[in-house]
Structure formats: C-alpha cells, structure tokens
C-alpha cells in the first residue's frame, strides 16, 4: 500500500491560513490503513484545526468527508454537490488523491495534509516500512524475494557494498543491509549460485526516469 504520514499541524495551519471555509477530505484506502488519512484522522485533525483557529480568534468552518478512494474519478465526483461552497480542500489522501481533487475541481485549491512517503507495509502495530520503489521491472525472482532497489540504500544489484557491517547499512545502524538479507535468503533457498551471476545495468526507462508512466489495458477499455 501507499504509506503516508500527516504533516505537522503548524505546517497545515500555515497552508490553510488564508481560508475560513475548508473541506478536510480523507480516504478509506491505503492512508486509512496506515492511520494517516482515514475517517478517524479527518476527525482528529478537524478538531485540532478548529481549536487552533479558535485560539487565534479566527474561527474556521470545516466540512469533514472521507471518500471511498481519492484515486478514482467516480468517488472524487461525490463531493461535487458542495465543493464550491468552500475555499479549499485539504486532502489527507496520498499525493494521487490530492492531484485527483485538483484536476476535478479547477477553481478550488487542493492541499496536501500528509506526506506520501513510500510503498510498503506494516511490520507490526504502528510500524510501517518501505518495500517497493515501483521501478517498473521487478527482479525479485533473482534476489530471493527481497528488493535490492528498495532495501539497499544504494540500490545495488550485485551485492553489498563495503559499508555493510554486522548486517547493518552504512547510512544508519538502525537500517538492515538489504544485501545481507538477500544473501541470507538465497542461502536458505539454496540459490547462492545466483549471487555469482552479474546482473547487468538496469533499464531505468521503465522506472520514473522514463517520465510519468501510464498503463493502457486495451482489453479493459470501453
């Protein structure tokens, strides 16, 4: 899923400073699962903003709404009935959602209430970590199911650099060396011979380096 983290309240207050009528729009997708922008977070943030603005002597009218998904035109349309009664939308969805709102409601500014951080998953309650960089050309079958692009700080494809120490990455002792994990896993899978092969330079054109990406599925077009 897409994992995000709410922006600091001060930053949000500064962003919405010009406005007195605001929609705070959550999303029931990924950001609800990672507790950054679901119904609950919309409620808490709206309450915090009202309190802060009240303290400033400038009350604000907030409409709380949480869409099924903000990355789908069908759901984004659901606020059309009242969106123009407000001056801005603060989206608690990922960057995709903010852009959908911006594209759909031209005159109304769409503001990001969270920082979209990565594609990953939950490690345990309250802890999420990055697993995928969406490079567009998956090599997990070569690397024991552990992503070198994401898990190695340098995205190396041919093994751990000289900074790997006791299974830790040179950037931070809290970060596990991705290649240590890959090699352990290859050993477990009895695929250590894979490590002998030189993986050639990656074709990054299928990654973001090739420009904004798009998938067109002819079979699904109507």
């Amino acid at each position, binding site marked *: 899923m897409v994992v995000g983290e709410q922006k600091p309240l001060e930053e949000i207050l500064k962003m919405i400073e010009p406005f007195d009528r605001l929609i705070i729009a959550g999303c029931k997708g990924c950001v609800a699962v990672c507790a950054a922008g679901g119904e609950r977070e919309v409620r808490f943030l709206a309450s915090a903003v009202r309190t802060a603005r009240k303290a400033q002597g400038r009350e604000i009218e907030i409409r709380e709404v949480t869409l099924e998904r903000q990355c789908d035109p069908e759901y984004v349309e659901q606020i059309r009935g009242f969106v123009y009664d407000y001056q801005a939308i603060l989206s608690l969805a990922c960057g995709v959602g903010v852009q959908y709102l911006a594209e759909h409601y031209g005159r109304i500014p769409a503001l990001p209430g969270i920082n979209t951080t990565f594609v990953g998953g939950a490690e345990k309650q309250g802890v999420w970590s990055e697993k995928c960089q969406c490079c567009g050309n998956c090599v997990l079958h070569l690397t024991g199911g552990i992503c070198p692009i994401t898990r190695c700080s*340098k995205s*190396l*494809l*041919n*093994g*751990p650099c000289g900074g790997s*120490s006791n299974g830790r990455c040179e950037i931070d002792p809290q970060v596990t060396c991705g290649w240590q994990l890959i090699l352990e896993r290859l050993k477990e899978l009895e695929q250590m011979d894979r490590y002998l092969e*030189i*993986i*050639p330079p990656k074709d990054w054109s299928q990654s973001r380096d090739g420009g904004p990406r798009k998938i067109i599925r002819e079979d699904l077009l109507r």
Partner: protein
Amino acid sequence: MSKFKTNSRLERVLKSGYFAVTGECGPPRGADPEAIREKGELLKGCVDAVNVTDCQTAVVRMSSLASCLILKEMGFDPVLQIVARDRNRIAIQSDILGAAALGINNLLCLTGDHQKAGDHPQAKNVFDLDSIQMLAMVKRMRDEGKLLNGEDLTRRPQLFIGAAENPFADPFEIRHIRLAKKVAAGADFVQTQCIFNIPKFKEWMKRVVDIGLHEKVFILAGITPLKSVGMARYLKTMVPGMDVPDELIERLKGVPKEKQGEEGVKIAIEMIEEIREIPGVHGIHLMAIEWEEKVREIVEGAGLLPRPQV
C-alpha cells in the same frame, strides 16, 4: 597477463613483477591547485601511481579528473577514481573518454559512500550503475570499443582498470566472491580497504588464492598509518566497514601522546612487511589520510625505495 594493455606505469610495474606502491591524494575543498601540488611533492618518487579520490565520504572536493591532471603535469601516473553515487552512465562514459583523451591511464571504479554521512545529505543520489556494472562497461569500452548501448567508439580509452574491495565488510563469506565478480567484470587490479586486522586479511587472501583470483588480478593491500589513538578510535567506531582491533589501539595508548604518530608509522611499516609475505599480494595502496608527509618514511622504512623505473 602477458603484454601491456595501456600506457599505465602501474600496469608496467605490476606486470614486470615488482611489488607495487600506490598512494592517495585527497583533493582540497577549494579551487586551489597548489594544495594538490603540495601533496604531490610529498609523494614524488615514493609511489608508482597515485589515486585521486572522487568526493570521498560524499564531501565536496575539487574534481578527481582535474586533480589527476595537475598530478600528471607533475609526472605522476594518476588513478582516476569514479563513484557511482554522483554520475549516471552518460556522465561516467563521457568522463572516461575525457580522462583517456587527457592521458589518464588508470581508473578505479567505486560504488561511493552514501551521501547521508557527507556534507550535502540533502542531495539526490544516482547509483545508475553499481561498481561491478561500471567495471564491465569500461572493459567493453576499452576492449571492444563500444559504449554501453553497443554503439562504436571512434577511439578506445586505454585504461588500466581497478576495483576496490573491503575484506572487512559483511557478510565475510561472500567478500572474495564479490571480488571474483569484479574480476569477471573486468578489474585488472584491486585495492583493498585499509587493513588493520591482519589475521582476517590473511583469511580473506587465503580464500582469494584458493579460487585462483590472485592469478587473474593484481591485489594491492590497503595501508593507512594511524596518527593517534583518537584516529584509531574514530576509524573503528565511525567509519563503516573498518576493522581496527583493540590490540592496535592498546599499543598506541601505551606510548605518550606525542610519540603516537611515530608508533603509527612503525605499525604501518611492520604491517607492510607482514603483508608482503602473504601469498597473492602484489603491492600496497598507501592511504596516508592528510598525512602525506609520512609516506616517504613509511615506504623507505618498508624497504620499498627506490621505486622501479619501468
């Protein structure tokens, strides 16, 4: 390894069977060519080639290529270091052609330290290629006259190609295999990370020799003289992949502070003597970090002067 592939002095020294000595010059944080020349003066006559670091530890320095050229003008055979951190395949190939055109004969392909610990942690990194892919790319440019995309070069860069390896990084059991990958990719010589833990280095070398790598690549053992207990502790705790045994720190602690540098030089000389006896080692790479004035004393003390005229 019969005939010479390049005009590299280092290649001649190694292929003529001499025990090679390479040095290191870290460029300054500034546009001052004199800083390079001063370091060069201290290394003159002591080394067969001199490596010029490429923004080492991800700190901005004068470019390696520019510094190499200053050293070349002084009569050195510089080793251009290129890290994968800051350049993509377009820039690296371009720099390689430029370096070869300017008469640089040696290239060391490195991954590069992550920028997080450097002086611009906000920077975007590149890592388009890794060091192994870079080695293969350079070898193909030199031996087949082709760019990475398969297109022909009008003239091939004649470069003696180097790699680095850290025998002290983890996991230990794949470190010699990683070297094998670098050799398969195209490394003619390898310079190791600074060695302080000799038993571990011997174990690594044994594995290297067991798979016959010493017959395919020239191995230069990395030596860094310790200036003080403080430096030893810093390397041990702050520099990832550095293995400084406690006995070494204790030995330095055993002498008065003003004598620690002298002791460090003594240790370096003893290490060179011991490393020279290890089968498969073809030379040393002396990295006297901001302590170039001790290079002559160390090389002389280890009986490695004068350097061969090849």
